[in-house]
């Protein structure tokens, strides 16, 4: 990659991982507080301030800055040219960082303890909403940067196939523009004017509908880089090739098209939307599992190929033959394992009927921690280990520590999230800070709460090892200057692909039509019907 972009990538990644580390500490405090086993640290106010900060740091700051940094690396490394506009990329970084600092002030002073969702009538200080919006605006500039880098490359390389990693990154940028529009509209026309006192009421049903537009596909915005790493870095580091470049493109296209118009599975219990539309969104929700199944198949097939090249025999012998000392291989296998477990839970959430059993329980929080904290974040960590020597010119401080850290991360995540799911099935509601009731049911929750604290502690140790490894790497002697990326080559590298698999015009058209069908009437009905509105919950 180009030297001038390295500092840009490092700056984005360090903001991401600093947020990650702070959020982990808060996470451990939260499981301890909620367990009720440590009365001396119990505080309702602190708990909700902490949950809000933890969620914003993990869900918005870690992800956005990581995705931006990894995207810049991918663009310069795969296209083998400078960014379309490096100045714009620094502007994006500055706006996003400024927005983060702006949102952090009300969060840390207890004026934005509204969790990390945007559900009125809970109301935060306006600087929280404005800061969060600026973070999104920064990410929009990143989207422009990615799209224009691809467009200009294609213009200069007519007929050539866009490198797979960049194709996936551009798909993610376009998907994020589609999906972030929902929360953008909610912010600009509802939350910001409302929190500034310019409006006396707003329609929470409309706000929830707009947020659902963003709420599911944002998960795929986070997951995309993990899949990109699985397809385009993992096979090479495992010592093999990508099983199918075309299959990966199809998965990226399906994620772009399907993941946005399906947000109503977050509104199954909401009264303002009709059952028919919920059913439509449910079908889409099940459909979005298909690209994940494709990914699981293709990545495992690639790894099987690598294992067999390393001498693995028999049905499962290739697994043992993989290079388990390579952090990316360890992370890839563990991420897929957690994806299978989390995906199973996701199918239950997606089902209109079964969702009723787990709605608003700790099952839901357990699920999204397993999928996000497990599958997504572990790949972020592995990508960081892979990129660091290329970005700094210094070797990783300890590969053994990196492997240990990834195992600890998985063990910690499983010890944390399995009891979390169980608590949900035992009826513990989510979004609570304590359970101060004396009943046999609450007594059943205690062992699970205790296990979650152990899981949280393991995760904190793991995160500490991760940050230490990166920091110590900066102190190593600069020994090499790597400018090329280690991108995987497909078993049959595509010499040409059909036009729709090298661009996005057709898919944008399909998304537009599907969005009108899925969200048109549900939003318009809220605008033309005389909804009563609601007063702010903080008047």
């Amino acid at each position, binding site marked *: 990659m180009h030297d001038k972009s390295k500092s840009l990538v490092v700056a984005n990644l360090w903001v991401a991982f600093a947020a990650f580390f702070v959020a982990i500490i808060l996470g451990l405090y939260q499981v301890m507080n909620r367990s009720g086993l440590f009365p001396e640290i119990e505080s309702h106010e602190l708990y909700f*301030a902490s949950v809000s900060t933890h969620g914003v740091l993990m869900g918005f700051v870690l992800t956005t800055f990581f995705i931006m940094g990894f995207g810049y690396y991918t663009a310069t490394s795969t296209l083998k040219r400078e960014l379309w506009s490096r100045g714009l990329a620094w502007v994006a970084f500055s706006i996003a960082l400024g927005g983060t600092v702006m949102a952090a002030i009300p969060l840390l002073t207890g004026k934005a303890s509204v969790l990390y969702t945007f559900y009125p009538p809970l109301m935060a200080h306006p600087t929280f909403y404005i800061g969060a919006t600026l973070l999104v605006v920064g990410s929009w500039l990143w989207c422009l940067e990615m799209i224009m880098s691809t467009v200009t490359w294609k213009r200069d390389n007519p007929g050539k196939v866009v490198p797979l990693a960049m194709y996936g990154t551009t798909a993610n940028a376009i998907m994020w523009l589609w999906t972030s529009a929902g929360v953008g509209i909610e912010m600009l026309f509802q939350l910001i004017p409302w929190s500034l006192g310019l409006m006396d009421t707003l329609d929470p049903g409309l706000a929830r509908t707009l947020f659902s537009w963003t709420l599911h596909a944002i998960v795929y915005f986070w997951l995309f880089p993990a899949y990109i790493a699985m397809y385009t870095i993992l096979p090479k580091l495992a010592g093999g090739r990508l099983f199918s470049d075309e299959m990966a493109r199809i998965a990226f296209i399906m994620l772009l098209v399907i993941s946005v118009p399906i947000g109503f599975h977050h509104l199954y219990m909401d009264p303002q939307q009709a059952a028919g539309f919920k059913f439509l969104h449910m079908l889409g929700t099940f459909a979005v599992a298909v690209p994940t199944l494709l990914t699981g198949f293709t990545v495992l097939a690639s790894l099987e190929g690598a294992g067999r090249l390393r001498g693995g025999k028999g049905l499962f012998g290739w697994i043992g033959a993989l290079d388990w000392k390579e952090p990316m291989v360890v992370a890839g296998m563990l991420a897929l394992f957690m994806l299978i477990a989390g995906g199973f839970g996701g199918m239950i959430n997606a089902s209109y009927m079964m969702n009723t059993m787990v709605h608003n329980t700790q099952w839901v929080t357990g699920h999204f921690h397993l999928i996000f904290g497990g599958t997504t974040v572990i790949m972020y960590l592995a990508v960081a280990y892979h990129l660091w020597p290329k970005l700094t010119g210094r070797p990783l401080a300890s590969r053994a520590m990196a492997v240990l850290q990834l195992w600890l991360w998985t063990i910690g995540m499983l010890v944390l999230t399995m009891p979390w799911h169980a608590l949900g099935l035992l009826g513990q509601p989510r979004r609570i800070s304590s359970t101060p009731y004396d009943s046999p049911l609450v007594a059943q929750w205690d062992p699970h709460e205790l296990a979650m604290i152990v899981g949280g502690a393991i995760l904190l140790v793991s995160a500490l090892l991760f940050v230490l490894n990166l920091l110590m790497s900066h102190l190593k002697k600069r020994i090499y200057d790597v400018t090329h990326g280690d991108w995987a080559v497909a078993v049959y590298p595509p010499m040409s692909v059909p036009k729709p698999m090298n661009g996005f015009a057709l898919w944008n058209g399909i998304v537009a039509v599907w969005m009108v069908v899925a969200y048109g009437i549900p939003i318009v009905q809220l605008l033309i019907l005389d909804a009563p509105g609601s007063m702010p919950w903080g008047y």
Partner: protein
Amino acid sequence: MKMKTRKLIILVSALLPFGLAQAAPSSNVAWTVETHSLVKKGDPKIGSEIETVETEDVNACIDCHGERGAEPDRDKHPTLAGQIAAYTFKQLRDYKDGSRENRKMSEAVERLTDEQLAALAAWYADQPIPKVEVDEDETVSEDTMKLVFRGDKTRLIQPCASCHGPRGEGAIIDVPAIAGQNVKYFVNTMKDYAKGKRANDVYSRMRIIAKSLTREEINELAVYYARLGGQPGGGGLFQAFAN
């Protein structure tokens, strides 16, 4: 019509006004959007001017409640500083409407408009919750502390903190701040609720709770909340580190 039936009708008719009186709402203040907007737009600057106005037959607010509502002349008068604006507004309107009985207060507010009441409420809400004097010998038992944060399910008493906030700072919509309140005023208020002498709490929420509390518990709660006055507020992470 038989004589007996006629007597019965006359008796029922005579009692009807009392029945209607009983059916009157505990307060005429409804938290509509309009009322919210009125309170929200209250101008504290105007409130600060009203605070000092006195007439021939009505004292100024500061005469009894002290400057900025922070230093009442007698501990049976409440502190008003740091009070939730919606609560103060509702009380003033209740005095005006007769939903809360106090001759002096009713006379004090009868000539004030709703906008002026909102201004006064906004002025007091802008002040910090005051520090009040409490006898150092007064203690608060562990059982009373449980009432604050856990309540007592055997008497169907919910935790005080669940409505009044973990620091007694008050909450939406019109739950009053009780931190930094004078001990005597607090105790008298609870007694009035228990006896039904004060009845402007919607759904009898405080009347039911006050009846269930012992005299000792009320005294200790008064001491506990009085001592919370003058402490820094905020529930953020910065505050947690500071504490």
